[in-house]
């Protein structure tokens, strides 16, 4: 018999969220994403356009902001389930480039109750080994995982 009871996630302030790793940021996925988004910006699919910028980024395409954000969504989903995210606010201090290995990370900064729900406020970020934090922001998740 399957137990469909929701699972209560236990955590405390300072706990680290299990990391989620994107081993290789694929330029092919950026192209698919650009088509779905109807995003005309060549930075996401034309390496020559990026190389021509005075930013020293080299011959690499720039990942869409929402795609970088999605890696943190994936981290949160694996931790607290696919219905748990209530809010995410993200900033983009650095770009994510094709072929990079990036790691979504986070830490619990507060736990609170709101309208009967137990919520965790988290600091979250996307990290690259040499360049540090590429994206950073906050997330609120409900600490109940639907079975």
């Amino acid at each position: 018999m399957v137990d469909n009871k929701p699972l209560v996630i236990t955590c405390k302030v300072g706990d680290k969220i299990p990391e989620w790793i994107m081993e290789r940021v694929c330029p092919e996925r950026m192209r698919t994403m650009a088509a779905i988004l109807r995003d005309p910006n060549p930075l996401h699919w034309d390496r020559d356009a990026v190389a021509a910028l005075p930013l020293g980024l080299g011959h690499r395409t720039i990942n869409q902001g929402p795609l970088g954000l999605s890696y943190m969504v994936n981290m949160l989903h694996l931790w607290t389930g696919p219905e748990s995210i209530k809010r995410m606010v993200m900033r983009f201090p650095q770009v994510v480039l094709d072929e990079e290995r990036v790691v979504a990370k986070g830490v619990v900064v507060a736990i609170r109750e709101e309208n009967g729900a137990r919520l965790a406020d988290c600091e979250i970020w996307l990290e690259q080994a040499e360049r540090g934090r590429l994206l950073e922001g906050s997330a609120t998740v409900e600490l109940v995982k639907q079975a």
Partner: protein
Amino acid sequence: MNTIPQESEITALLGHSFPGGTYKIEHWENFLLTGCTGAELLPNGIAHPVALFHVPILGSNTSIAEMFALGQAESDLSIIPESYDWEMFEPLKEEVTYTISGKIIAAERRKNEQGQTYDWLQFCFEMTSPEQVLSARSTITWQYTRNTL
């Protein structure tokens, strides 16, 4: 040097509303979108939240290109995304038709720490389910840089 728009042209954008409309995230779209994120499809027809970027834009009958043009972007390359704020009041679902509205809630001329002028626009979109429940809100903040490229 590009000609910078008059500040009054930028501030006049405050309150600009998009036509609005509806959008249904079809299964094929969610499948491709989720694949781009590197995740497996979510259960029970839940759409990946990454849809909260483009679905509100397209569903309110605008486009990334039109949003660039409204702020008189010098080029596609001149836009810097400052922040995305996604509020999720219930999970988004595939094959559900959402009613979507959107408007500009802030439009200001600013200077960065280097003294460079840029224009600062905030777009707010809301998605309402067929049951008239506010399902999600997306607030996009972009910087329209001027003469930095």
